[in-house]
């Protein structure tokens, strides 16, 4: 049986694990997902000035004037213009989102318990608990979650937890006109992705590859995975993300050794004639 995050988190009989398969080969860059996400979740604008969100910014680098995922941007469409070997231009679009990692570093390190695993195996922040310590921000290997300026708390994609509980699919998947964003049970999505990859390869699109689908990767496989047409870093994604909490036992051993060393150093320094020179 595959590892089920919800079951391991204590849900005795969770529903099927669900997630996203984002097939970037059919993304047309319309940003309907970005808009639908903002609308449904009531997310504020996030321009360059934290003190005035109504000021918007043109990045001047491409059609991407969103820039990156953040506290108020939970879907981000990347636009890549890249010279190819044939002298032409590859125009790549990809809608990025929180990966809802099987082993989620953000959740591991959250000291308040604000971040939690839902029955659908997604990863969600409880806004009434988060105290804005920002540990999750530095822990996420994809740079997804962020603290919202002015608000002080951490925010990210909830996989539309409210919609899922009401039996609806997430707003971005619903809005996507090409089905580049597909929502469903993760097992089914993985099968579909394998078929799509085989199809593309047989059509000669050898640069197609899956990203985040492998349960053996550093985050135990992503709950939101992708079909990409170039290397992940071309889209601003890390090539081999790792949830660093897997090294925690080793880290604590070094800390324990250092603590003993500190105590030992003090003991050595205080050895010698008792009470000399008070």
């Amino acid at each position, binding site marked *: 049986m595959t590892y089920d995050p919800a079951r391991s988190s204590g849900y005795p009989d969770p529903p099927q694990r669900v997630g996203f398969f984002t097939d970037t080969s059919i993304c047309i860059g319309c940003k309907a997902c970005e808009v639908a996400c903002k609308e449904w979740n009531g997310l504020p604008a996030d321009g360059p000035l934290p003190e005035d969100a109504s000021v918007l910014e043109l990045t001047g680098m491409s059609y991407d004037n969103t820039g990156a995922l953040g506290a108020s941007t939970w879907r981000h469409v990347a636009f890549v213009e890249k010279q190819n070997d044939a002298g032409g231009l590859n125009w790549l679009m990809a809608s990025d989102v929180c990966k809802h990692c099987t082993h989620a570093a953000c959740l591991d390190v959250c000291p308040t318990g604000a971040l939690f695993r839902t029955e659908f195996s997604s990863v969600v922040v409880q806004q009434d608990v988060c105290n804005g*310590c920002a540990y999750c921000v530095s822990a996420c290997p994809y740079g997804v979650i962020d603290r919202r300026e002015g608000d002080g708390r951490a925010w990210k994609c909830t996989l539309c937890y409210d919609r899922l509980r009401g039996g609806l699919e997430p707003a971005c998947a619903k809005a996507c006109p090409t089905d580049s964003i597909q929502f469903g049970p993760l097992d089914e999505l993985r099968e579909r992705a394998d078929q799509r990859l085989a199809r593309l390869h047989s059509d000669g699109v050898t640069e197609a590859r899956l990203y985040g689908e492998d349960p053996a*990767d550093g985050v135990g496989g992503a709950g939101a995975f992708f079909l990409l047409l170039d290397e992940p870093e*071309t889209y601003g994604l890390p*090539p081999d993300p790792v949830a660093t*909490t897997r*090294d*925690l036992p080793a880290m604590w051993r070094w800390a324990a050794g250092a*603590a003993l060393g500190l105590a030992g150093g003090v003991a050595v320094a205080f050895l010698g004639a008792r009470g000399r020179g008070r």
Partner: protein
Amino acid sequence: MNAPEQVDPVQFTDYYGRPVLKVTRWKSPHMPGYLFLGGLSGAASTMAAAAEATGRPRLARQGRLTAAVAAVGGAGLLVAELGRPERFLNMLRVFKPSSPMSVGSWILAAHGGVTTAAAASTVTGVAPRAGRAAVAVSAVTGPLVATYTGVLLADTAVPAWHAAHRHLPPLFAGSALAAAGGAAMVMVPVAAAGPARRAALLGALAELAVTASLERGQGFGEEPRLVSEPYRIGRAGTLLRAARLLAVAGAAGTALAAGRHRAAAVAAGAALLAGSACTRFGVYHAGVLAGRDPKYTVVPQRARPRVQESRPG
């Protein structure tokens, strides 16, 4: 031309130069200030306990006071660091072994409690027995407070911090000892401060040795020269060079003159304190740079065999 600290330009792909990670939201001076004060408090309380056990009342009293003041100041910085400071007690809502900040919050709460109790007893003369018991407990919480912060930084996606997970705890332990020894040299008369000088020397030597290894990226995994680069360049590089100068000067002063002249002891102690602070600010700024430039994330990950094999085509 590259300075020798800098790695030659690397070939890699990114997305318009944008960071892959989020740059840490931890602020300066809050986070590095806390690292410094927490270390100072932890080592000072340990020294206070040792002083008490070996019958050195002046060092014991100074250690108790330093430990408490630094613990309270450090905790204050941590609260101010939060996006929602009024919710700081949520830190003690759960105990999560998977979160170094959760573990650390409990350690800090215990440490803050016993060090303030010990200091209050010293100042007021009330409940001396309870005060002694509190100092004894702080000999356990102290080393933990001084070193868990290494795990706190290392358990992040920030390459320069995570790759340094073997360095940061001993670095912070040495730095803490140098600071606490230095504080005692500043505040306690020369004749009574012998053990503090020895502690400070040990700490400064450890700090220097681990920093040298950190800057070279020894044991860093893939692309050690590149991943350790943030410790050598920019603001972090400047701070760590200053830390080294201060530690060397402070250690030399401690070994040669601080046992004879009070003025020399004060100067050497102050240099060690400042050096310890520079170390913490340097480590912090290395993490800021490592999060900002995508090459520190992409290049070492690209070098892993797993990724090499999975290239299609």
